[in-house]
């Protein structure tokens, strides 16, 4: 997306927001200028801290899920017998909404960062696993043979074929699932914790009827999601320039 489109989108959001605020005309839906003032006042303090904590949790979950799902996905895609063994398990577990494991994770890992990071990582893990597995399985045997005939062993095949072939899939999986990940983070942070944007929005602001503050939290959460999309797009342009060239 170009900067001009981005500015236009932001402007339209503000207009719709202002109109809705007039139409609803209640404290629970404050106009943008009040929220922006509250946001400006808090982002360098309390809100900023909660935003950073949430961002850290998502980032850690992305790193954890990529680091585990990519090698496993390549292994499954490459070794048919392994895939035949695990495909039914993945088929059943993949569609389970991972948020239902929140209580279990809270009991096992406590209410700190660990349970939240692992919950989000679980969501991302299955998305990435399935996409990477299919990308590795779809690599044409001719391509593998010809690289093998250039002298590649297993290590070089990973380095020059399987890993680069997995990158577009990883980015697509992240793009598809990062929105869900942030939403789940919000739920996970909204109880049994004292930090993160979910806590800020639900406990600190909503619970105390501070609506402008609540919306500044919503704004921060939106910026977090948007920031992640931008980061994924930038990675895509940097790592996969060949996808745009055709």
């Amino acid at each position: 997306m170009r900067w001009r489109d981005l500015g236009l989108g932001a402007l339209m959001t503000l207009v719709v927001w202002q109109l809705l605020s007039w139409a609803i005309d209640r404290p629970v839906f404050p106009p943008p200028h009040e929220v922006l003032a509250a946001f400006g006042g808090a982002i360098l303090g309390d809100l900023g801290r909660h935003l950073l904590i949430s961002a850290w949790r998502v980032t850690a979950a992305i790193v954890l899920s990529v680091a585990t799902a990519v090698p496993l996905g390549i292994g499954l895609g490459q070794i048919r017998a392994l895939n035949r063994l695990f495909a039914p398990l993945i088929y059943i577990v993949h569609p389970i909404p991972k948020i239902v494991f929140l209580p279990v994770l809270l009991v096992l890992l406590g209410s700190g960062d660990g349970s939240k990071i692992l919950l989000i990582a679980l969501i991302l893990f299955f998305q990435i696993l399935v996409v990477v597995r299919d990308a590795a399985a779809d690599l044409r045997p001719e391509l593998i043979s010809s690289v093998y005939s250039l002298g590649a062993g297993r290590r070089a095949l990973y380095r020059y074929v399987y890993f680069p072939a997995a990158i577009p899939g990883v980015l697509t999986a992240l793009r598809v699932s990062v929105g869900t990940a942030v939403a789940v983070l919000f739920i996970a942070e909204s109880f049994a914790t004292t930090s993160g944007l979910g806590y800020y929005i639900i406990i600190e602001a909503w619970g105390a009827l501070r609506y402008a503050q609540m919306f500044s939290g919503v704004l921060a959460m939106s910026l977090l999601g948007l920031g992640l999309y931008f980061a994924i797009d930038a990675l895509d342009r940097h790592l996969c320039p060949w996808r745009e060239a055709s």
Partner: protein
Amino acid sequence: MIEFRDLTFTYPGGATILAHFSWSVARGEAWAVIGPSGCGKSTLLMLAAGLRQPTAGELLVAGQPLDRPRPRTGLILQDYGLLPWATVRDNAALGLRIRSFYGRDGKHTPLDEDLSALWERVDRWLRRLAIDHVADQYPNQISGGQRQRTAIARTLALRPDLLLMDEPFGALDALTREDLQLLTLELMAEQGLTTVIVTHNIEEAVIMGRRILVLHHPPNREVVTVANDDPAWATRDYRKGPAFLARCNELRRLLEGSDHALA
């Protein structure tokens, strides 16, 4: 250079492709292998490349038994085997980069390999194959002929002594195909290569093969060869002369003598 000694190859599914098959290629020879679809000509090439192992018998390349691809053997396939995410230059450099990835270990990389001027070597081959102007483009941005040139550059940059090609020009239009056939013949002479090219096309077999191996429906037991010793062979005008046509007809008769016509 290549020796099939009483070699049998059976697929795990049960089909025997070669049965007690003996065939040898001397150093510097240019062979074409022709036969109908499913005759096992690609299998024969995969065996020579070390990508498949014989079920019984022996296969020697440069005097050594083959249990994995050999560093000095180059392989070029029809679908080019280029990495879609790498530029022409990076694709052409792939073999050399794999060699520097392993270092001179004698297994993946010949012990006497010098990788100090890797990119100069790659660029020299890009210029030799006239694809230096598309060096920074990706495979999906260039023509089929340019893609095949990239595959050739990638293979020749490794200084092979044996070049195996499986239907290398099958996906190209007639003129590009003739162009690349001539270029390949030129490079074969220039680099002193031993070559085996697999094709289902009679004209291509006569153009590219100084000697031609004819395979029939499997299992193949006896070796049927045609010697193509016209002095004009490998010249630009060869395909226009009567000797070329006569050789094509001879080959056609041999193939029709097998139980099925060519696909």
